[in-house]
């Protein structure tokens, strides 16, 4: 029971401080790792899995983390936590929709919140990169780093879609880390 409450509270915090997709990742990462619900590489896995499956990233992370931490009940509770702002703030906003439509304050707040999210997400990219491109001893793992750079090129330069890039890296991963290391 305590676990479910903790899980719910974590995702309430995550929900209320996220403004669209990616901005959830920094808090998810710090909440999951500090509670011991996931390791840093599992955080990467969930971002990848969430990108490949339907549904918003934040809720997919909630399902994954909830399942890992406390099974089905955990998944449900984490989703409800992440949706808390939708059921409270947003429901109220719906009533006063016309006011919100032209809210100057909301716009002004977003002028500061959006760059703040960019800063945090930049931080989390570096954190994840430090784990994903390193071997167990903490040294740079060159094949991973090269594959990462290829992926960046595919995404930014050649505009390949995210699911395709993820599929591509899975296949290369099997060849590079499975076949080669077995042989």
């Amino acid at each position: 029971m305590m676990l479910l409450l903790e899980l719910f509270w974590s995702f309430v915090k995550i929900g209320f401080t996220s403004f669209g997709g990616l901005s959830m990742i920094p808090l998810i990462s710090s909440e999951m790792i500090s509670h011991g619900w996931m390791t840093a590489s599992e955080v990467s896995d969930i971002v990848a899995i969430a990108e490949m499956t339907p549904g918003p990233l934040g809720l997919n992370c909630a399902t994954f983390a909830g399942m890992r931490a406390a099974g089905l009940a955990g998944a449900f509770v984490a989703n409800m936590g992440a949706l808390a702002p939708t059921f409270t703030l947003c429901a109220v906003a719906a009533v006063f929709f016309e006011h919100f439509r032209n809210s100057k304050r909301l716009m002004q707040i977003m002028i500061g919140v959006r760059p703040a999210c960019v800063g945090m997400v930049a931080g989390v990219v570096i954190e994840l990169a430090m784990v994903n491109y390193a071997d167990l001893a903490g040294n740079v793992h060159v094949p991973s780093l090269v594959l990462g750079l290829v992926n960046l090129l595919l995404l930014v330069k050649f505009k390949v879609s995210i699911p395709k890039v993820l599929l591509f890296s899975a296949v290369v991963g099997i060849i590079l880390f499975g076949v080669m290391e077995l042989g």
Partner: protein
Amino acid sequence: MLAKLYIQFLKFGCFTFGGGWSIVAQMKELYVNHDHTLTDEELLDLTSIGRSLPGTMIGNIAMFYGHRMSGFWGGAACVFGMITVPMLVLIIITSFYTAFQSNIWVASAMKGVRTAVAPVILSALMGMIKSAFKVPPCYIVAGAMFVLYFFFRVNCVWLVVIGAVLGLCICEYYERVKHHDAAA
């Protein structure tokens, strides 16, 4: 009515890969072009407000639309409809992931996939930059929040709150400068 909203959003929920924009496109197709329950402009308003409130953008949009059609429970029906399929899919995947995590082939596939995660986030971040930096001080906010997050381990909740306060301050400053210039 509730059942109809639930089923409509159940369908939207099946096809929401990579961010919430596909659901907006589907809503446009059904509600604006076909049912005429929304105009283009109203959909745009729903989207922009849903996006600037905390939480999941498409959850918020679903709540707004459902609320419009049938009050709070209409909103709840839309939200639950939207999350049903993704949640089931992910519950199944998570079970498999947990069971096969240590399998050599799954592990090496995941190891490959992990190399794509930082680039994926980075490329999405580049997309955010345009709308995030409206005025020059925004760059300072982003830089400062990065340092606080990465080096000082400040909790994200505080960083968002600080960002909100700074947003108000920045706008206040620009208003005053404008007034000052107008007076002079």
